[in-house]
């Protein structure tokens, strides 16, 4: 089956921004109709000057659309009733830009760490939970180990989780604001350093957005180089995530084995792009990366060897009954929940939703790519664990096919008309990452990065209730989300 992939941006919604009741209704209708016809919410950002809000919608076939609405008396209508996935985006826009969202009630603080406490409902940022024997456990922002900073508030009865509120943004560096006014070319630096684990994805998503705005499309060679870098990033991440699940149940041998693989995969990243996390490997409009015949062959051989060893060790993990029995039925996120919450990436696929931006990425070299879903797609820790392995084999296959010839410096070429706004969507190791760039000539007027981790944090909270508190680290590690790319 061949799918025709279009990249469209509805210019009408962007230019007819007048603060009338009619415009507000049009905005909500546009969002509703899109969602009803299979499009998904993919992000919401505040336009430069903070006079309007723009919602990014993505079709299952790769098209994107921005629906905009102007502020009236500091407010825009909320769409959280139509798209629950917009929950964090609206709360963030409120906390960082002071925008009101009519109909979003209660609009709980997210990025705002003001500790307002209501005498009855408790802290304003948590969901009030009351009942006989219900109590709270506060964890973080500093955790016991080498873990990013963030706070979890568990509501419990005994050891069982009733509800979880996650408070992130401890690591908020204001990267997107800091990027305003920078040259478009410099944006990849901000995108990469939002998060090392997704540095390549974030910078490719940014580069795609900037290039779309500039009226550029990648040549086949540029697409290939970037796809290699993206898959190498997925490679070390998935190995790391398997190690993390082993650590989550205290299986030191598995953790150590896969940590060693992770290290080795990062060395391969360094051999190809010159940096273990791919910092500086992606630039707007082209690529300077060159890898000769001998080097490519060596990398390919190294990956072949790594694949064999990973396969053996993976089988060993599955044969370990005391380990394997810890995974099923823990931290379940149903397909319905995943659909509702807009879950993306391996977590969504492990729940049975066969969606992957790679299958709709005309700017990258993923022709014929099909998402993989585990046979036992139950959305629990086990399914997410197995999902990583399934995707690893895909990644090894892709890399083997892509690295069949030297990598040479490449550039973008004119394609499509230049415009003020560009959008990039890329599948990170954690799921669909969207980047919107609004430009002012050659400078950044606004950039917003909505990463797979950002999209999935509410799913972690949704997978927790009903489980035992001591299982939460395992549940959390089975998602293995970044805090840094959510916080930015």
């Amino acid at each position: 089956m061949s799918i025709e992939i279009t990249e469209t941006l509805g210019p009408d919604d962007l230019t007819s921004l007048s603060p009338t009741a009619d415009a507000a209704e049009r905005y909500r209708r546009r969002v509703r109709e899109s969602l009803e016809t299979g499009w998904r919410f993919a992000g919401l950002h505040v336009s430069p000057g903070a006079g309007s809000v723009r919602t990014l919608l993505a079709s299952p076939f790769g098209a994107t659309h921005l629906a905009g609405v102007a502020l009236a008396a500091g407010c825009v209508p909320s769409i959280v009733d139509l798209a629950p996935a917009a929950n964090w985006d609206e709360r963030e826009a409120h906390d960082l830009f002071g925008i009101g969202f009519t109909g979003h009630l209660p609009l709980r603080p997210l990025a705002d760490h003001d500790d307002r406490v209501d005498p009855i409902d408790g802290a304003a940022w948590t969901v009030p939970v009351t009942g006989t024997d219900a109590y709270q456990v506060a964890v973080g922002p500093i955790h016991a180990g080498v873990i990013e900073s963030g706070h979890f508030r568990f509501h419990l009865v005994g050891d069982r989780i009733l509800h979880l509120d996650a408070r992130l943004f401890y690591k908020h560096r204001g990267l997107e604001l800091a990027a305003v006014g920078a040259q478009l070319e410099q944006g990849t630096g901000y995108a990469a350093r939002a998060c090392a684990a997704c540095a390549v994805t974030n910078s490719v998503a940014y580069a795609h957005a900037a290039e779309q705005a500039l009226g550029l499309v990648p040549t086949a060679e540029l697409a290939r180089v970037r796809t290699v870098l993206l898959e190498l990033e997925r490679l070390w991440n998935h190995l790391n995530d398997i190690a993390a699940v082993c650590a989550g149940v205290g299986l030191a041998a598995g953790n150590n084995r896969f940590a060693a693989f992770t290290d080795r995969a990062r060395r391969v990243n360094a051999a190809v792009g010159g940096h273990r996390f791919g910092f500086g490997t992606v630039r707007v409009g082209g690529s300077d990366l060159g890898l000769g015949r001998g080097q490519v062959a060596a990398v390919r051989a190294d990956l072949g060897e790594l694949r064999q060893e990973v396969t053996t060790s993976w089988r060993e993990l599955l044969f370990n009954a005391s380990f394997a029995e810890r995974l099923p039925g823990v931290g379940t996120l149903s397909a319905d929940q995943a659909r509702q919450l807009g879950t993306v990436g391996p977590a969504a696929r492990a729940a049975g939703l066969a969606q992957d931006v790679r299958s709709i990425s005309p700017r990258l070299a993923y022709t014929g790519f099909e998402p993989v879903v585990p046979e036992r797609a139950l959305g629990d820790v086990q399914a997410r664990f197995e999902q990583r392995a399934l995707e690893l084999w895909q990644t090894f296959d892709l890399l083997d096919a892509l690295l069949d010839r030297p990598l040479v410096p490449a550039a973008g070429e004119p394609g499509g008309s230049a415009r003020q706004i560009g959008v990039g969507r890329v599948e990170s190791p954690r799921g669909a990452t969207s980047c919107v760039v609004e430009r002012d000539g050659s400078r950044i007027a606004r950039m917003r990065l909505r990463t797979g981790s950002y999209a999935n944090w509410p799913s972690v909270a949704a997978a927790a209730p009903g489980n035992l508190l001591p299982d939460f680290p395992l549940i959390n590690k089975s998602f293995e989300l970044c805090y840094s790319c959510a916080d930015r």
Partner: protein
Amino acid sequence: MFTLLRDLRRLRRDIGLIRPDRGRSLAIRHVDAGSCNGCDHELTLTSSPAYDLQHLGLGIVASPRHADVLLVTGAITTRMQGPLLTAYAAMPQPRLVAALGDCALGIGLLGDPTEVVGPLDAVLGVDLRIPGCPPTPDTIAAALLTLIDNPPAVIPQR
């Protein structure tokens, strides 16, 4: 399981880490004060077979209460300044502070001035500086070992 353990043993042999017995140890408490997670990811690997800091007497501990070293990654965000200082205050004396990575050292810091307090030495005195973006696990391991091999004056000498 047997195969896993055998592979790990082989891996250790191939890597051939030299482990002079230093007869000393340091407990490290890591705090991420606003990193991009790169320094943290590399720090995690210092416990993996190829670097194996525990075998050299350097362990990452869960609580600042029994830590000798506060190891900080990232720029200090306004929201992490408080928790960072709380962790420092909870440590017994003598204690050391180490800055891991360029952000913590204030090199090429990115961020909005209202959200970032600055590098680590804007809030705490720094005893050990480990530059790099991020420094590789062996750089981190080597730098931390200098704390054992050439302890700063605040640590009582044997």
